[in-house]
Structures are given as structure tokens and as C-alpha cells.
């Protein structure tokens, strides 16, 4: 803990000292960034832009959770469905998504729907793959015992597979939230014409106001960390035995 505190202080003072040597165009001082951030909040620019961006995030994220979890579970239960679908989700998962933005713009225009659909496509593979892994890897011994005690297929599904799946669903939520925020940022950077956070970054970059640009960027990154942190906290409350697994390794991605 002490080392972490010292390292934070070193970074902060290092940044401050660097800002003394550079100009506001290269390294704005941390104090300038903080004051610019307060100004962005007080003037209402950041909250207005953020409400636009976050509404796309909320809709796209919710839709991908509502659609992704059932698909993932069904794939884990029905082998043929898994064979039919997993190639597409894996391909979408490894593909550089930013490249499909022009197609989104062509099909859905510049408004909210294009960003919502992009966030959906960006997020849903992560959720499907994680839920699929969970349902697929339900220990066979559990299922065999249930079957030996004459549980029906329906009972096995609801009383064995689903309870086993729940921590995976929450992991899927955590990874999905992270993906959704990333998708939101990519959409903001590449879909011009909406007045979201990306537009603010463009405006301040064009007027060479690096202090404000940095304030928005750091805020966005903090947003991703905080959102993920909230779900992670929830995850540890629900499934404490899964503590310590990080990121993609545990979901066994392709």
C-alpha cells in the first residue's frame, strides 16, 4: 500500500515537473487539467455531451446483455447450436471492430441508432463467449448425479446448469461493461456528427486546448475503470471463490 501511494505521488510530481519544462501544448500541468475539468462540468458541456454518449452505452449494453446471455447459455446446452454459431462470435471477437464503423454509418446514419448498434456488436461477442464457457463447462458429475436421481432435462437445466452459470454471467457483465465503454469511445471518435464526448474532444483538439482534451480523456478512462470496478465488487460479493481471475484468460477465449 505504501509503495502504491509513493508511486502515485512520484507520477503526479513527475507530471507536474514535466509540465514546468513543456508548454501547455505538449504537457499541460495537472492543475490546469483539473481546473479545465471543473470548468467543463460547471459550464455544463461535459454533462450534456456525456448524457448523449451514455444513453447509447446504456441502450447498446442492455440489449447485448439481454440477447447475449440466453444465446450463450443455449449454446452451452445445445451442441449443434454452439457449432453453428461460435465461429461468428469468435471472429467478431478477434476482429478490429473500428473498421466496421463506415458500414454502420452507411446503414444507420450518424445518429443514436448507429452508435447503439455498434456498441451492441462490440459487446455481445464477449458476453456470449463467457456465458457459453460457463454453461459448457458445467461439471458432468453434477449432471450425472442429478440424472441418477431422475431429474428431468428441464430440472437439470434450471437446478444444475443455471446455478453453475450465475458467476459466469456476472463475469460476462464485468467484461461486457468494459467492452461497452470501449465501444462507446471508439464510436465517439469515429462517428462524426453527434454532439457526444467525441465531438468535445474534436473541438478542443482543433483549438489546441490540450488541457481540456486531457481532462476529457482521463475522465473517460476513469469511467471505464469505475464501471468495471462496480461490477467487480458485485462479482466478489456473489462469487467470492472466483476472486483473482483477471480479464480474458479465465473465459478461455479463442
Amino acid at each position, binding site marked *: 500500500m505504501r509503495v502504491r501511494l509513493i508511486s502515485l505521488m512520484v507520477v503526479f510530481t513527475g507530471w507536474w515537473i514535466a509540465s514546468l519544462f513543456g508548454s501547455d501544448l505538449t504537457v499541460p500541468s495537472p492543475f490546469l487539467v483539473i481546473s479545465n475539468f471543473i470548468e467543463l462540468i460547471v459550464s455544463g458541456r461535459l454533462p450534456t455531451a456525456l448524457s448523449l454518449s451514455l444513453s447509447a452505452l446504456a441502450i447498446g449494453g442492455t440489449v447485448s446483455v439481454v440477447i447475449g446471455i440466453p444465446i450463450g447459455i443455449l449454446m452451452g446446452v445445445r451442441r449443434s447450436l454452439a457449432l453453428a454459431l461460435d*465461429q461468428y462470435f469468435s471472429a467478431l471477437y478477434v*476482429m478490429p471492430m473500428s473498421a466496421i464503423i*463506415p458500414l454502420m454509418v*452507411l446503414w444507420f446514419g450518424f445518429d443514436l441508432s448507429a452508435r447503439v448498434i455498434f456498441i451492441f456488436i462490440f459487446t455481445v461477442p464477449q458476453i456470449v463467449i463467457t456465458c457459453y464457457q460457463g454453461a459448457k463447462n458445467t461439471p458432468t458429475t453434477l449432471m450425472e448425479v442429478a440424472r441418477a436421481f431422475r431429474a428431468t432435462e428441464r430440472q437439470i437445466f434450471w437446478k444444475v446448469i443455471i446455478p453453475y452459470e450465475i458467476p459466469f454471467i456476472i463475469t460476462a457483465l464485468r467484461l461486457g461493461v468494459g467492452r461497452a465503454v470501449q465501444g462507446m469511445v471508439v464510436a465517439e*471518435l469515429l462517428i462524426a456528427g453527434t454532439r457526444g464526448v467525441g465531438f468535445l474532444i474534436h473541438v478542443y*483538439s482543433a483549438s489546441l486546448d490540450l488541457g481540456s482534451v486531457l481532462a476529457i480523456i482521463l475522465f473517460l*478512462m476513469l469511467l471505464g475503470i469505475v464501471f*468495471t470496478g462496480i461490477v467487480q465488487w458485485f462479482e466478489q460479493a456473489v462469487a467470492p471463490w472466483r476472486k483473482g481471475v483477471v480479464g*480474458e484468460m479465465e473465459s478461455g477465449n*479463442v
Partner: protein
Amino acid sequence: MAQTQIQQTTRFPVLGWLFNPRVLSLVGLIVLWWLASLTQPEYFLPGPQAVFRSLWEVAVVTGDLWTALRLSIMSLLIGGGLALLVGILLGVLMGAQRTVEHAFDLYVNGLYVAPVSALTPLLIFWFGIDLAPRVATVFIFSAPEIIITCYQGAKNTPRTFVEVARAFGATDREIFWKVIIPHEIPYIVTAIRLGLGRAIKGMVLAELVVSTTGLGELIDWYSHNFYTASLVAILLVLMLIGVLGTALVRHFEIAVAPWRETS
């Protein structure tokens, strides 16, 4: 599943292969795509035949694809190589030394979950719009992934191994080189696979946001001129690169550490 497949292949080898859900769904998807494309103008939704014609054109007739790939791959190689170098060093040190771990873990974990693409506008300020900002984007995209994987590997070295080595009088240096590093190697290969995926994403994003070169330039040009079939062809190529690249390293990964194969 293994049983049904054996039955199918023994009775009707060709039919069994054809009625595989994988093949069926792919054929179904292409047919659906083709039917949908009939109802729309080609600039809006090009059909599969138009896309494959464009793919043939960019890959064989004009060869634009290879020129673009050559330009793109520069940033991937430099940025990814740097990330690998820094990532392995820092990851192993963080896993082996608690002080190093606590000094860096905040930033590494933060960068891992934060949307790093937000940093690209900043990189333009710092590095201009040439090769340097693209290399930096690739680096920032792939380094956290590599660091975290290597860190996990070094940190999860089984305590019993370390204790046995110590009981037989191994020095700290010997424990590092003869216990931690061998245990680390499969993790490094995993890190390469995960890092490569992220690096490709960073490369494409940088080419779209920072400076339009390589594949990003092709995407930009085709989309602005409504050459949608060519655009989709490039997207297919990108998808293929992602899938093949990961599969290739995955293969290598299983060869290096077969016991880590999960599924």
C-alpha cells in the same frame, strides 16, 4: 457429440461433413445475405458475389491490398515488438518482486480496463501524424494485456516449487532463472496471442483516427466513394487476419504447453 459424428462419417462420409451445423449455418448465412442483397442497391448492401469480385480485384488484379498491408504491418511490428519487450520484462518483475508489483499494478490494471482508444487524440498531440503515433497506439493497446498475462504467470509459480528449490539451497537468482522463468514460458506465448489480437485492433484504430495509411486508408477511401463491396472485402480480410493470426499462435501455444489446453 463424438459418437454421433462417428456414426455420420462412417455411414455417409460426404453427407456427414455437409450436414455439420457449422457448414450448414455458413451456407445459410451466405444464402440469406445473397437474398437480402437482391432487395437493396449494391452501394448499400453488396451481395456475396460482388464482395468476392472486389476481393479478387484488390488482392490479385490491382494488388492494393498487399501495398496497404505492408504499410500497416510496420506499426504492428514495431509497436507490438516494443510492447512484448517491455511487457515481458515488467510482467515478470512484477510477478517476482512485490515492490515492483505495488509500484505499477495500479496503472497496468487501470490501462487494462480503461478504454485506451480515448488516448489516440492525445497521441496525435505528442507524436504528430506519422508512423510514431500509430506505433504508440499499438503499444498502448497491447502492452497492458502482455504485462498482465506475464505477471500472472510469474506470480502463480507454485509455492511448493519455490520452497523445494530453497530447501535444496538455491539462491534467489537460481530460483528466478530455474523455477520462475521456465514456469513463465507458456504464459509468454499466451501473452503473445492475446497481445497480437489487441495490437491488430490498435493498428486499425490508429489508421482510422490518427493518419489514414495502409488498410485504414483503403477503408476510408472505399467508404467515402461508396465502394461498399470493396469495403466489405477489406473487413473480411481483417477478420481473417484476426482469426488466422490467433489460431497460429494458439497452435504454437499448445505445442509449447499442451497441459494448458483448456477446451
